């Protein structure tokens, strides 16, 4: 008779604990509930206001790009469109002018794609091999190499702009997409190599040693052990490179000709061109189109994106 009673008391008290710890989300000690909810209002309130502020420009972009010009002239940037039109989008993609050329952003888009794909693949292959060599193979000058990479990650690009112009001109690649791909590959190396090195260093050394004992060589270990084990870091690297290269402006404007300008450069030329009437809706549609690729990558990748920048930045 006694047992069920104590049992039920125990269960009841367990329920209370569960409920409390449920309210504070986690098995940490119980907290007074009242204070907690006021705190919540402050926290959520602040976060919601901040989040709205961060979302505002995106909202403005979308709203503006869906309005016609007459509507823009009478309203303000935040007013939702009365009459939704997709014409600005079409115009931005296919007709917007940069100087004499009126092909719209599509040309820049395809240029960017043609720059992006080889740059991402090349830079990741090279950087992963470098990182692997740095992490697992002690070779002469590894420390010097590592130091150069760290400096390379921080040195302002402006210092190296002109020497590379000369280098590319010597190679006959100045103004071509190949040249730009090379530039992206080289400048992606420092941060990517560090990323890979940090990841490979964190893998258990025993694996590496076991493989060596079994007679695997430099490439064997890299291809059969390191690469299959580090798919996440490859994804992170891809995310970093795709957004980085797509968003690049400086290299695009320096190392390519107007025909081959990447999307960001063309976008800037369209929006900031001095001739003609300013068509804000077309400008905003063009801006969204340019921002769309990295945004899609970002929203799809979610946590990996965060991991990428955290890994690339904090550990150093």
């Amino acid at each position, binding site marked *: 008779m006694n047992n069920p009673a104590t049992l039920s008391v125990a269960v009841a008290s367990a329920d209370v604990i569960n409920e409390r710890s449920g309210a504070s*989300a986690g098995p940490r000690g119980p907290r007074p509930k009242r204070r907690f909810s006021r705190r919540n209002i402050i*926290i*959520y309130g602040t*976060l919601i206001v901040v*989040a709205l502020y*961060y979302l*505002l*420009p*995106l909202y*403005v*972009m979308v709203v503006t790009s869906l309005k016609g010009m007459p509507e*823009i002239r009478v309203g*303000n*940037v935040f007013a939702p469109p009365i009459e939704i039109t997709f014409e600005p989008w079409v115009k931005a993609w296919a007709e917007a002018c940069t100087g004499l050329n009126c092909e719209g952003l599509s040309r820049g888009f395809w240029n960017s794609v043609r720059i992006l794909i080889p740059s991402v693949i090349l830079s990741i292959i*090279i950087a992963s*091999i*470098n990182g692997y060599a740095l992490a697992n193979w002690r070779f002469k*000058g590894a420390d010097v190499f*590592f130091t*150069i990479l*760290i*400096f390379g990650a*921080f*040195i*302002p*690009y*402006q*210092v190296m*702009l*002109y*020497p590379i112009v*000369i*280098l590319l001109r010597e190679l006959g690649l100045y103004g071509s997409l190949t040249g730009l791909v090379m530039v992206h590959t*080289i400048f992606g190396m420092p941060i990517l190599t560090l990323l890979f090195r940090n990841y490979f*260093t964190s893998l258990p050394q025993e694996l590496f040693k076991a493989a060596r004992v079994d007679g695997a060589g430099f490439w064997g270990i890299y291809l059969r052990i390191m690469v299959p084990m580090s798919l996440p870091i490859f994804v992170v690297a891809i995310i970093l490179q795709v957004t980085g290269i797509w*968003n690049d*402006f*400086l290299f695009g404007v*320096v190392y390519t000709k107007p025909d081959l300008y990447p999307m960001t450069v063309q*976008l*800037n030329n369209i*929006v*900031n061109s001095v001739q003609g009437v300013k068509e*804000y809706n077309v*400008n*905003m549609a063009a*801006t969204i189109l*340019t*921002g769309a690729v*990295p945004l899609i*990558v*970002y*929203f799809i990748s*979610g946590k990996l*994106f*965060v991991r990428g*920048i*955290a890994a690339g*930045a*904090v550990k150093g």
Partner: protein
Amino acid sequence: MIATALVVFVGGTVWTVVYSFTDSKLLPRLNFVGLEQYERLWATNRWLISIENLLIYGTLSLIFSLVIGFVLAALLDQKIRFENTFRTILLYPFALSFIVTGLVWQWVLNPDFGIQHIVRSLGWESFAFDPLYNADIVIYGLLIAGLWQGTGLIMCLMLAGLRGIDEDIWKAARVDGIPMWRTYIFIVIPMMRPVFITTLVIIASGIVRVYDLVVAQTSGGPGIASEVPAKYVYDKMFLGQNLAQGFAGSTMMLLAVLVVIIPWAYLEFGGKRRPT
């Protein structure tokens, strides 16, 4: 690969520094003139304005992005619901390029349609907030856009730092009855010193390079009120046909970055090279 890195990063840098002591104009040539380019540089009004802008922008964006980034991270770290949603929203501008950022804010801050127009139409007729057309405050317009783009990253770095703090520290502080804000200021922040230093270095080296944002948002205008060193360098090298001036300017930028990163690199990598 080592050779490439050496040639490009070290070779390129040395090349630029060497040629900054010459009188190269349209084409680089080795006719040394000593420090003349630097004297000219520091006597050029546009360069001085660029430096002043960089200092204002740099100081404010350092302070604001650290403070805002940390506060947001601390808020997100309160075991709240929808943490992922909030984080996604706060970080998305970081995925956008500076060009996109600059163009959007150019539009939002447009005095005829944007914020100024809205506040005026609410009845406050004399309200004036036109940072992109007013030389005195244009740098704050850039700052608003720059912060919008960059604080998400700082927040994430800080959040990672906060998550790295042992839960027992919090428990101990709570047992001792220390209020939360004091725990943050006197215990957690000092413990996060490495994170802060790294973040500082990342922000600082990013600030020195700031270029695309200015090009997109203001093109250095009105007049030369929002010029920055990186833009000066680019214009001199590729538009002004005054190579050596550009080299001198970029060498100054290099110097600025080195002042920031050498002590950091020494702390981070030099001191604790222990066998692992």
